[in-house]
């Protein structure tokens, strides 16, 4: 067989981006592993542990809230045609085009002191920038469920709500979970909006910035590494779980 030079060439070009993403990860982690003492010290730092806890808590809360509101919205976007649907769809995608610092300013202007420096503020900033992932994934998940399945469930005696919970939702669930994981990942990686809305309670991502500004690169490195390892582990485990349920 003739060798497929085109695909090989494309693969070669494409490799660049993969390496580009991997390289800094590998470098920062391996550098930190050589500085084991500092890593251990950081792991016993109350401030760091508290900030990590805050990050995990707020991003998980954000994911749950985005599911609660995003799944019904996704269903409506998938099943109904209505006037202004494209407007609603555009609104859902707006957070992607707004710089995150601007998101923070907007939220602060709108809700002022009520959200300043509070868990609520962090979650609201996270939700604003990360909810579209859940909404769009839910919509795509429901779109992939044949409407005939719901119709048949109805004629077999299920109410609309029962058909939703026994047929549509279970079938869309893998897609919805993928979206929720993206929401969680986006939430825990958010800095810009949080920095403006809620510098305290301190989240790990903000702490990294603070350490960098105050003590320099070396000081901010260990907590960066911990944050990266933690996020990546959770992200990979969740993706693996969803992938497994998809193939079941």
């Amino acid at each position, binding site marked *: 067989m003739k060798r497929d030079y085109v695909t090989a060439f494309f693969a070669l070009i494409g490799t660049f981006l993969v390496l580009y993403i991997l390289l800094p990860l590998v470098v920062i982690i391996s550098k930190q592993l050589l500085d084991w003492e500092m890593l251990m010290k950081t792991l016993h730092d109350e401030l760091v542990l508290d900030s990590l806890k805050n990050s995990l808590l707020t991003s998980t809360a954000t994911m749950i809230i985005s599911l609660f509101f995003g799944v019904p919205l996704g269903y409506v976007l998938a099943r109904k045609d209505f006037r202004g649907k494209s407007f609603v769809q555009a609104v859902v995608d707006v957070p992607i085009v707004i710089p995150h610092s601007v998101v923070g300013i907007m939220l602060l202007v709108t809700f002022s002191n009520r959200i300043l420096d509070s868990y609520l503020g962090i979650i609201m900033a996270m939700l604003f920038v990360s909810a579209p992932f859940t909404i769009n994934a839910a919509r795509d998940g429901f779109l992939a469920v044949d409407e005939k399945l719901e119709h048949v469930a109805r004629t*077999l005696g299920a109410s609309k709500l029962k058909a939703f919970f026994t047929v549509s939702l279970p079938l869309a669930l893998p897609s919805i979970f993928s979206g929720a994981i993206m929401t969680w990942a986006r939430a825990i990686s958010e800095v810009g909006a949080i920095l403006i809305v809620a510098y305290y309670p301190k989240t790990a991502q903000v702490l990294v910035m603070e350490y960098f500004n105050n003590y320099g690169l070396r000081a901010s490195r260990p907590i960066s590494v911990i944050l990266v390892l933690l996020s990546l582990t959770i992200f990979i485990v969740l993706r693996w779980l969803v992938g497994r349920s998809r193939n079941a």
Partner: protein
Amino acid sequence: MLRVENVNKDWKEFKLREISFEVNKGEYFIILGPSGAGKTLLLEVIAGIFIPDSGRIFMNDEDITFLPPEKRDLAYIPQNYALFPHMRVYDNIAYGLKVRKTPKSEVEKKVKEIAEILGISHLLHRKPKTLSGGEAQRVAIARALVLEPKLLLLDEPFANLDVQTKAKLIQEMKRWRRELNFTALHVTHSFEEAVSLGDRVGVMLNGRLIQTGEVREVFGKPKNEEVARFLGFENIIEGIAEGRILKANGILIELPIEVKGKVRIGIRPEEIIISNEPIKTSARNEFKAKVLAIEDLGSLIRLTLDIGGIELKAFITRSSLIEMAIKEGKEVYASFKATAIHVF
């Protein structure tokens, strides 16, 4: 039992116009029409998935036009079967019973019973995507029939199956009907399904139900040219078969295969040979016939013949008509080969 009155509906490129018909209890009613005629839309309106723009639907004299699907007590089997892919076959069949909060032991008993009758007991633990087309269709029918619905709605149930599976399922469908005694409304574009299964048929063209009636009546006397052209097969004879002989209205017809009991046969008008004198050959069905009507179809002439009380349509060419001096009331001989007969 089901009565549809003047139903109109527009949806996307499909439409229903002034649809009225009735399905009686225990009847197998077939709506026959080409694709795009609006057959699926009609089923969905009856199932309650769509509300008609105007008109009424009654079930046992109760107006169900605006009832939601789950309150109508009928079962709908769409063309792609729509098995729930995340449930095993057992749970698919049990779905309606579970929704009705039937006790678990009873669910199990009923599912096993219906699976036994439909010959799918060995599939109960499988997921739908591992089933063949014929198996999936059986599961879909089981899921519907286990609820003993007042009416079964079938959308092209055999369209996606290969010829052999299809023929087998049609025969089994007759048996299931005898055993379970359900009422069905079946839409199809297949002439064969209509003649094999239908007690009565309705012909649907462009969103209108043009003609309804007994199978033999509709095929024998198409209401207009449009229906006749769609049906194609114009001679349907009903009778009692005994081996290779069919007794119909006093005449005996030799069949190409052995069958027993009440059957319908079809003969295409172009297969019938007309002559002034009897043709002396064996293996032919030959009858003395009286010409009832002569119709000019342009290139062909269609004769309506009477053979011992049965009406037959036959095509001859214009030159034959003149040569043989055929006129209304004239006696001729009509013959056709046993092999030209289609036994349904």
